[in-house]
């Protein structure tokens, strides 16, 4: 109770409110903490928050859906819907609640209703994809996501999601296509190069291995601490060198690359975990890689 001025509980309230506000602006998604703090704030200080209570409701409802606290989510979303019955934003939250409860059919209806009124609402289209994912129906999720991407081609998150779905379906050529798009949007991000190379490596075939080796090398060039890319380069080079179809020139080149990668890995492991050296040595022996040839 506030008597003569700010009391300890007030400071706590301001602290909590500011923290949640910062998370909202930075789009941080600490769901468990957000749900707990938000519940505390909304239960005790609802009136004192004023107009800020509505974005807070939205934030807390999404966080509680993430944690599975359906009762809290229902409370928040109900309050928002009462205040803003016509808003597509509140309808979307209602659809998310229906999804969380497992009622995919009515969620789908809700979303399609929103899309009828506002056909360019990208968030709702993505929720439709999420419905299919929730039902574990990956092919329809892929179809829906393709429809979304046909309209919103520059959404790199969507391409990333599509790549993951294709990998789940083991459709590696299409997943490689998606990763190429991601490389186009962020050409200096070493992880995209590395994952693209991994997909090519998984597909197999000498040509793919050569391209994969190059992309692993690019990943190492962009970030020399990328151990996975070093391993990738090592394995690609080794496989090309030991394949029967490569020319002598290719063999020498690739053994050179492989031993370089091995030297790098040795050095990196020496730097961090000296006792793992033996294990590493054994592994390399088993792969029969020697330095210099």
């Amino acid at each position, binding site marked *: 109770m506030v008597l003569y001025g700010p009391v300890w509980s007030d400071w706590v309230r301001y602290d909590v409110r500011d923290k949640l506000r910062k998370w909202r602006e930075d789009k941080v998604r600490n769901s468990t903490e957000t749900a707990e703090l938000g519940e505390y704030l909304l239960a005790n200080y609802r009136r004192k928050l004023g107009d800020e209570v509505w974005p807070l409701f939205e934030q807390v409802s999404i966080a509680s859906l993430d944690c599975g606290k359906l009762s809290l989510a229902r409370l928040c979303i109900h309050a928002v819907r009462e205040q803003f019955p016509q808003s597509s934003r509140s309808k979307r939250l209602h659809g998310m609640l229906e999804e969380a409860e497992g009622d995919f059919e009515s969620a789908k209806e809700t979303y399609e209703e929103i899309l009828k009124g*506002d*056909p*360019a609402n990208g968030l709702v289209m993505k929720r439709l994809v999420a419905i299919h994912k929730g039902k574990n129906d990956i092919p329809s999720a892929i179809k829906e996501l393709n429809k979304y991407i*046909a*309209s*919103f*081609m*520059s*959404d790199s998150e969507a391409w990333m999601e599509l790549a993951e779905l294709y990998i789940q379906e083991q459709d590696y050529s299409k997943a490689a*296509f998606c990763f*190429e798009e991601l*490389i*186009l*949007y962020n*050409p200096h991000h070493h992880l995209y190069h590395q994952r693209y190379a991994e997909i090519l490596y998984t597909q197999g075939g000498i040509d793919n291995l050569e*391209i994969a*080796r*190059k*992309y692993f*090398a*690019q990943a*190492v*060039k962009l970030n*020399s*601490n990328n151990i996975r890319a070093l391993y990738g*380069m090592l394995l690609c080079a080794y496989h090309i060198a030991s394949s029967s179809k490569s020319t002598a020139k290719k063999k020498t080149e690739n053994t*050179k*690359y492989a031993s*370089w990668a091995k*030297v*790098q890995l040795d*050095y990196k492991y020496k730097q961090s975990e000296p006792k793992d050296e033996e294990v590493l040595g054994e592994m390399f022996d088993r792969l029969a890689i020697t330095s*210099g040839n």
Partner: protein
Amino acid sequence: MAELLLDTNIRFWVVLPIVFITFFVGIIRHYVSLLLSSQKKVDLQKVSDGQVLMRSKLLRENGKYLPKRSFQMRKHYFNDEETGFFKTQNREPAMQNPMADPSMLTEMMKGNLTNILPMIVIGGWINWTFSGFVITKVPFPLTLRFKPMLQRGVELASLDASWVSSASWYFLNVFGLRSVYSLILGENNAADQTRLMQQQMAQPMAMAPDPAKAFKAEWETLEIVDHKWMLANVEDELIGNTPYPSDVYVKNKYQ
């Protein structure tokens, strides 16, 4: 250079009131336009077109990081003579004529109503109320051509053009208080008239032929792009002649 001594009452009863009037009218205009503003309907086609253009631009710029085949595949998708995206998508030129398009017409009318009309009305009222005397002197010399413009109501042939009347002080305020509005109302406020005027001038260029012409321009720029694969010699670059100082451990140069 005649030095006039102005009545100090002018300072209190003319200069400051005009500042306050301009300021408050601006704030009122901002809130009125907020009330009158209608929800802008986002056209899916327009959004999608913008994104396509962005993707094509990125292909042009970063295509050299992709393998040759992938780049060719995408270029073919966009530029091919029969099936390419930029060739087959015909967009209707959007309505340029504001008289023919009802929604744009109301939008323009609302814009005019909330901005130009009050300015004219209040400018005229100030001119009528505070007429017959000069308010202040601008700190830089002006030519005689400015006299009829800036010295309404004061018909003195020998008076310096630097002495201005109330109407010009009003217009000075309108433009000058822009930064004060952005301080108080935040960016993008509706009281900012100069931005609106710039928009009105820029609009005829930015709108209608946008899809068709933009596609054609993008087609041309994509057509001339050549693919030079950045990754062709990346391993040699990595191994041979680029010793990163602290990270890469190069034992000795490979013979």
